[in-house]
């Protein structure tokens, strides 16, 4: 029996790893100023966000969480629970790590919105753009999140900035998808009504389609935030500080307690942010369909 039936023939081989390496190296060398610019910009963004987060005293942040929960969900008991959970982060001694993690997540989510929202709008208005972007999004969502770390490190080194880039890329699909979906599924008659009164395309988009799609867009934003939070630990592999870093230290040094404590804080942060953002878009959606 010839060998090529039993095992895949060696002769048929295409190496795509090398060209990709070469490509990354090429832009790394030739596009240096460009990536330095990005690095400076993102660092500025992160520092700005961090300055704000750090400026808020711990008791005020807890009070904000308490008040928002009460206002958005109308559940006083849950407001107390979330306040206590926030307090727990401080008691466990991870308050400042939490602040940094929160800042990285906020920065990445801001980037995802700034880039993703216009793409989503564009895709919603053009079937060609949709056909182009859709497979890219599918690929991005099935790609293991670790893969994003490599080019980020290659191009921007290690630290918080590549973490923001990797997180942004990983977390951007829901914003694009849900913006697109929301705008495309605005009630046809409502769009027709806008057009029948002589709205320009821009007017229809800004005055009718985007506001009508807002609940869906907010649902996408919620998913994006959750995905950004789920990158926290992964990104600490490329030197991002904060709670994820604590988890990684815990793993490396077999300090189970340390890793678990930090992991718990990530969960607390995720739960609270998830519920609060859900609360925001559900109140909006409730106005649409609730009392009909």
């Amino acid at each position: 029996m010839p060998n090529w039936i039993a095992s895949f023939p060696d002769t048929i081989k295409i190496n795509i790893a090398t060209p990709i390496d070469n490509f990354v190296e090429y832009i790394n060398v030739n596009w240096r100023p460009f990536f330095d610019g990005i690095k400076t910009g993102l660092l500025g963004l992160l520092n700005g966000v961090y300055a704000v987060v750090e400026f808020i005293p711990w008791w005020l942040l807890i009070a904000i969480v308490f008040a928002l929960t009460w206002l958005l969900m109308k559940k006083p008991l849950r407001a107390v629970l979330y306040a206590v959970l926030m307090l727990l982060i401080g008691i466990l001694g991870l308050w400042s790590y939490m602040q940094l993690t929160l800042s990285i997540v906020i920065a990445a989510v801001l980037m995802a919105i700034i880039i993703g929202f216009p793409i989503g709008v564009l895709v919603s208005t053009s079937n060609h753009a949709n056909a182009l972007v859709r497979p890219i999004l599918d690929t991005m969502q099935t790609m293991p999140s670790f893969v994003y770390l490599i080019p980020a490190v290659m191009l921007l080194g290690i630290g918080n900035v590549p973490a923001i880039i990797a997180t942004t890329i990983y977390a951007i699909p829901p914003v694009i998808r849900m913006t697109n979906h929301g705008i495309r599924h605005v009630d046809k008659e409502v769009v027709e009504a806008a057009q029948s009164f002589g709205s320009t395309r821009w007017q229809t988009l800004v005055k009718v389609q985007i506001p009508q799609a807002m609940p869906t867009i907010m649902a996408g934003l919620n998913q994006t935030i959750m995905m950004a939070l789920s990158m926290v630990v992964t990104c600490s592999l490329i030197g991002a500080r904060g709670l994820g870093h604590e988890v990684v230290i815990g793993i490396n040094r077999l300090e189970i307690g340390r890793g678990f404590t930090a992991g718990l804080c990530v969960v607390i942060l995720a739960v609270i942010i998830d519920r609060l953002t859900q609360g925001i878009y559900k109140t909006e959606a409730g106005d649409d369909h609730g009392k009909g």
Partner: protein
Amino acid sequence: MARDKDIVLEVKNLYKLYGVNRNAAMELLKKGAGRSEVLKQTGVTAAVNNVSFEVERGKIFVLIGLSGSGKSTVVRCINMLQNPTAGSILFEGQDVRKLKKKELLDFRRHKVSMVFQNYGLMSHRDVLGNVAYGLEVRGVPREEREARAHEIIDMVGLSGWEKKNPSELSGGMRQRVGIARALANDPDVLLMDEPFSALDPLVRRDMQFELLTIQRKMNKTILFITHDIDEAFKLGDRIGIMRDGQLIQVGTAEEMTSNPADEYVRDFIDSADRSRVFCAKNVMETPSSLIRVSDGATKALSAMRRSGVSSSYVIDEKMVLVGILTLEDAMKAKAENTPIAQYIIQDIERVAPDALLADIMPQAARTRFPLAVVDSEGHLEGIISKAAVLSSLT
């Protein structure tokens, strides 16, 4: 007489086809092929197939047809929400299809407004914001457009609801917002795509009545789409019946009822409540005997005997109805040898010639005698027996 009509909107040989092979389909249609045949041969759906009609200024033109008959597509072609495949749409002589982008926007902003079946309201805006929308895209300053919106909201009876979200309103109220939004632009033509179909029957009746009131007050031209023949007959000055993308017959309610173009139209009309179409003058008959006040009792009696009736209407010299004289009373008058005048029953039911049968039904049920149809000066035009009222409805 037909020439001096003031035509606002004229639709000529309008086609709207869906599918790839539209040219081949056009050829077939022009040769007289049917919709299903065209679909089979070319895969093209003829939503609108050679439709032509005119709408007179200040009148309500109703397009009626079952779902899928193409009526909604026709109305969407008029403001170019749908781009027609062929034909022309003349608005005051100008072909809407030839308007440039900017001109089309202006046409939509100033000349036509549309009211939708499911209201098409924007849930992120309150009632005021919805009504002011048309003026907003036109660039009217906030204060001015809100003042105008308040005025219209007041007119449709929604004052006090300006700050509510549409989702807080009932169906009838939502459609009032829809109508107010369309009227706020002060358009020449109002396109209404089954505006009352989603409302329950009682609310629908109120809205129809109100629409007529508003139409009379503002003298708007309305193109109204419905699938309800009663609604069509109630509102339409002229009515067009559509089927499978074609306009089968255009005419007034009476023309259609008395002279339907084919079986389909007849069936459609049969489903209608005839009492709302026919009026007194359509079913009245000439009385078989008439008596003048000046006639003596003997003459009155012989007139009644001749025509075999037990009572007869009495008129004066100018044909003005005085009352009714029964056979019994005439005999009494003869026995007493007195003038008949004192025996005439003057308290009788009178109806106007254009009263709808539905409205005179209660009177017909109440009276012992046939109903007298009299014009505004009291002249007797005819009589309607109870039997005639009932038999005309079947």
